């Protein structure tokens, strides 16, 4: 079960990075974001594959084994998935891609996050059942936003209104996090 969800997470990470990198642009920030996204995608999958740190003490391991364990602990320590999300979105922002392209990327990123969670917690897909209606509504909003962005813009366009709403929502999300 865990191997399957880890594999799914790996495939979704690859899809997200590839999708956000298209069409390919060389040099500048795009190249840097692409390199960061690829590295973080690989490390996030490695983190899922490594699982929890072993229980046995490392006192009896040789130097090579202790070094390997230190590297594995370092991989477990860092939030590679979060960095990959930021890098992928930044890479997508570098391209003048159509709104539906970004919308599909958002859906793939969401699927990647759920796959990561299932692999990490070794849970079955059924644990996401209570969230299914919310996910459906969220995807609907995503489609709406992509559709609104696809409308021809002019003065006082919907895009400006959505930008203001996005700013308000960003403040709200930050507010949700700060008490924690």
């Amino acid at each position, binding site marked *: 079960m865990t191997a399957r969800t880890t594999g799914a997470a790996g495939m979704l990470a690859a899809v997200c990075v590839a999708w956000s990198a298209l069409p390919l642009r060389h040099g500048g920030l795009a190249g840097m974001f692409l390199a960061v996204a690829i590295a973080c995608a690989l490390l996030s999958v490695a983190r899922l594959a490594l699982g929890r740190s072993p229980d046995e003490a490392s006192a009896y391991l040789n130097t090579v084994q202790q070094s390997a364990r230190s590297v594995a602990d370092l991989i477990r320590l860092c939030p590679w998935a979060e960095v990959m999300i930021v890098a992928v979105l930044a890479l997508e922002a570098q391209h003048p891609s159509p709104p539906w392209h970004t919308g599909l990327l958002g859906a793939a990123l969401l699927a990647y996050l759920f796959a990561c969670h299932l692999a990490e917690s070794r849970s079955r897909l059924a644990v996401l059942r209570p969230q299914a209606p919310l996910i459906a509504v969220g995807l609907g909003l995503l489609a709406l*936003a992509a559709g609104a962005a696809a409308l021809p813009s002019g003065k006082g366009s919907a895009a*400006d209104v959505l*930008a203001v709403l996005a700013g308000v929502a960003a403040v709200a*999300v930050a507010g949700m996090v700060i008490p924690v």
Partner: protein
Amino acid sequence: MLSAHAQRLITLALAGLVIAVITRRPEFAGVAAPAVLLLAVRRPERPARVGVTASPSGTKLTEGERAELTVTVAGNRGFSVDLLIHPRYAVVPETPDGELAMHGGRSALPFQVTRTGRRSLGVLEITLWDRWRLTEGHATVELPIVDCYPMPAAQRQRVVLSRLPSRLGEHPSRSSGEGLEFTGVREFVPGDRQRRINWPATTRRGRLQLNTFAAERTQNVVIIADASSDVGEPGSTPADLAFRGAAGAARAYLAVRDRVGVIVYQRSVRWVSPGLGARHFYRIMNLMLVEHAVVADRGRYSPFTRLPRAALPPGSLILVFSPLLDRRLVETVRDLRERGFSMLIIDVLNTEPSGSNDSLSGLARRIWRMEQEAIRFSLRELGIPLVSWDGQQSLDEPLAPYTRRAMVIRQ
């Protein structure tokens, strides 16, 4: 606290919204929308008190015995519970990754303890999740300690001495008495019981003849378990084999109502004086359990070669389970033989020094083997029978030459 899943959703929401504002592209706000919606339903609440009970099906087990750990979680109030066991040394849970499945607030995990000793079962890690998987809580519970007795070796036949003390028991002795084993016919003398008259012999000889029977006696058995050498693979070291053999022999002799005592020989000597009965068997097992815990202790050797008289009743049969690596024990065995005890050594040495394959290591190993052979030869020369036991087979096989007939004591 926020789960890792929630932290990733927050990252997605913030990144999408910030990029939407900076680039003035509303589709990025749409990317953040599902994450914002999922985070909006989170309620930072926690159950007031969660009760966890973990109890094994038994606290006294034998090596390899299958037992069950029952974990009950109460008061989790709609939070789902994930259980993960981190077993300690020699505890083998029958689940591949240590995860326990909960059914109605209760979970059962079969496990085995594979090595003698007082063993902690490990640590139970409990993770609570809210229904949105956005809040998680962790707790760890130390699992109970169980006593793991050595697995008694199989033994059906027993070594019996030719001369037994005059106490009622189950072994036929040389002297005639009130037992069940027929020994011969003799002439009737006044005072004999009439029901023992052998009528066919009486008819043939013309005088009253009487059947005679062997008296049934008990014997004192003292088992010496040498735990001074804990070398080799854990779980099948000479000390482990000595304890298993001693437990098997103690069980076999107590089953026929012999008086059995045990001496555990390591850096110091502890013993249980000869006794009989099921309770005495557990006294012996408890001694071995406690002594196994100090096998690895690096305490100081006590320079003795004589065992205490209280632990050795005169005329006892002494069974020694030893790898004969400790010179003190070899001297003690010689001393006991000189004191006139009948002894039998069960050699449990199943390993030899490891080392590289160069000529010097090979030479050292050859010298070591020759020394071991010399020790065994000198003991045989003293009239002490010596058999080898690998810990796998039944004890009946190495002891077969001595269980077919009564063992004659040579003074």
